[in-house]
């Protein structure tokens, strides 16, 4: 099935690239969504099935795959609205390239989730960089060029770092006499690995994947990318692509967790996570660009996820739950941003205001999205954040816990003051006659995404809980 999916994706994306007809284009995108869903369901029904030697549908890969399948349809629908509704300078070629890159990005993420071989994951990370850069450069202006240049350059360095990590890992395996570099084989032989090389390898692989995950030190590329990419593409970059970084780090950490280097790895992760939350706080309290604010909120959440992972215990469960819920919530905010931009024609907080007056349904989405993203009840993230704090407490990281809580309070203040300005304060100058009418139906998918996140957190289906528990077992 994986083979059919990948070949199907390649055919669809090349047809999208060459096709000039609008309706053929949209039918192809629809066909891709159908194939993606069939693929997701098939993999769910065939858990732990090894395919093409290098791929295995394990629980963590499946969770993230299903989350991506779930958001793919709304994202592609809003991409269609984005291209159709308010962009006069779209050409058949730019539209084709946009959707081809979108399809390729989703498929590469899916394949990377299921990959059971670190080098294969690495290969698909390269593909995501390629397709993401086409999305970021969609508008072909100098600012988009700047965004894409920074993204490509930092991602190229991060990919090189991962490659160096793989080389060191091969040295660690060489000492153990292991030839097979699949994750399962590495985990089986963890007691024979050379610890010095393993340490270096983890450091490089971790640093490399932070570019995708959005952690200090390499988070910068992702911020510019999410800002300059069209909002539907930004939604994908802020969810599916960040999860790719998470799965890379998680798989490597699962090896480290069984070796004597476990507490050292925890220290590395805690430092990166704390710095990430700190950086997010600094920017979110003074930021004036709404899209970048959403992007920095992602940095904060990834910091929390990593803290949960390092704290261990219930924190690992909470980290996985948190990342799945974040995958649902962040796209809702990014997709809603499209409508905000249609109303105000600006990303700056200085130019917006009184959104409740111009688009009621959309404003409620923004408000609920804000509650969800800051982890206030009834947000699903409230549950996972609470569990992460609990695990930090149990692991005796009391000072870290206090620091993080203080930083989160400041983030809520910064995030809230911008969102309430957007929703309630009248804008300084606005020509109301130019505001387009926005159908309430355009916000339906965002409501579904937010509602699902609440449902999954408060009343998780048994299958969902089992998948998370299986993923946790890789570490504990």
């Amino acid at each position, binding site marked *: 099935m994986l083979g059919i999916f990948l070949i199907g994706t390649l055919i669809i994306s090349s047809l999208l690239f060459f096709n000039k007809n609008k309706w053929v284009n949209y039918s192809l995108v629809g066909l891709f969504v159908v194939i993606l869903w069939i693929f997701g369901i098939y993999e769910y029904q065939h858990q732990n099935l090894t395919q093409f030697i290098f791929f295995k549908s394990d629980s963590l890969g499946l969770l993230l795959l299903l989350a991506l399948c779930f958001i793919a349809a709304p994202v592609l629908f809003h991409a269609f609205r984005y291209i159709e509704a308010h962009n006069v300078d779209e050409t058949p070629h730019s539209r084709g390239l946009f959707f081809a890159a979108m399809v390729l990005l989703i498929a590469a993420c899916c394949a990377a989730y299921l990959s059971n071989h670190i080098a294969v994951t690495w290969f698909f990370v390269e593909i995501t960089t390629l397709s993401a850069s086409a999305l970021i450069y969609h508008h072909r202006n100098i600012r988009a060029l*700047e965004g894409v*240049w*920074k993204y490509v350059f930092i991602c190229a360095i991060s990919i*090189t770092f991962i*490659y160096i990590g793989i080389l060191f890992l091969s*040295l660690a395996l060489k000492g153990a006499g292991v030839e097979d570099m699949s994750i399962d084989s590495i985990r089986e032989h963890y007691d024979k690995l050379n610890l*010095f090389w393993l340490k270096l390898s983890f450091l490089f692989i971790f640093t490399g994947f932070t570019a995708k995950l959005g952690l200090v030190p390499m988070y910068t590329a992702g911020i510019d990318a999410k800002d300059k990419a069209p909002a539907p593409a930004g939604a994908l970059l802020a969810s599916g692509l960040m999860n790719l970084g998470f799965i890379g780090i998680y798989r490597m950490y699962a090896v480290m967790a069984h070796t004597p280097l476990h507490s050292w790895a925890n220290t590395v992760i805690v430092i990166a996570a704390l710095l990430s939350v700190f950086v997010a706080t600094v920017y979110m309290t003074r930021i004036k660009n709404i899209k970048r604010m959403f992007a920095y909120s992602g940095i904060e959440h990834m910091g929390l996820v990593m803290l949960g992972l390092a704290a261990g215990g219930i924190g690992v469960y909470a980290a996985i739950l948190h990342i799945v819920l974040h995958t649902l919530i962040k796209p809702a905010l990014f997709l809603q941003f499209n409508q905000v931009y249609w109303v105000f024609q600006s990303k700056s907080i200085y130019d917006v205001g009184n959104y409740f007056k111009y688009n009621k349904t959309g404003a409620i989405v923004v408000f609920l999205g804000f509650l969800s993203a800051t982890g206030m009840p009834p947000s699903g993230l409230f549950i996972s954040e609470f569990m992460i704090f609990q695990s930090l407490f149990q692991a005796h990281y009391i000072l870290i816990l206090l620091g993080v809580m203080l930083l989160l309070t400041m983030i809520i203040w910064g995030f809230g003051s911008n969102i309430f300005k957007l929703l309630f304060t009248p804008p300084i100058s606005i020509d109301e006659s130019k505001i387009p009418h926005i159908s309430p139906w355009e916000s339906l998918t965002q409501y579904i995404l937010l509602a699902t996140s609440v449902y999954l957190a408060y009343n998780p289906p048994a299958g969902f809980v089992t998948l998370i528990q299986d993923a946790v077992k890789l570490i504990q």
Partner: protein
Amino acid sequence: MTDILLIALAMSLLYMSIANRLYTYLRILILQGIILFGATYLTLTNLNIINLLLIMLETIVFKAFAVPWFMNYIIKRNKITREAEPYLPNFVSLIIVTMIIVSAIILSSSIKDQNLDKTFFVVALSMLFTGLYMIVSRKKIITHVIGYLVIENGVFVLSLAVGNEMPMLVNLGIMLDIFASVLILGIFFNKIGDVINDPDVNILSHLKD
């Protein structure tokens, strides 16, 4: 013989740290490409002939000729000034690069592993950090790319050290090379030249908070 080549590679880094003109950088890149070509031939003795030929072809064609030639073309086309414009004086750069190499040697002396030839490790690590240093200490975008290419050459040296046992990793390294050359140079550097005339990082520094 391999050791001589690797030491020459490390020496080229020192020369790079005091080089003033962009063309000197390109010449050093060509030299590094040729050295890597030789080192590949001498090191990868256990590989099958087709794979070895492919790898050697890549080093000589991509690393030694195509990429430097293309950069030369870009410098001429975009009329980039020939001065490298470092933020720090050359003497300080020389000291920093020397310190990078010395620390790599000290670090490698702490490794007790029979599986790795330490010369490879020292040279690879020095190239990696010198490349990073070049990226942060030079002003022009093109020198950033040159810094990245130095990192890549360093990584290639490291992959040679494990290449006999795991040829797949060397092939992956080649993929990385082609990926970076095509993506960074081919598409975007070309585009940057189209949009702005003097590619200098100051022009690309508007995206901030």
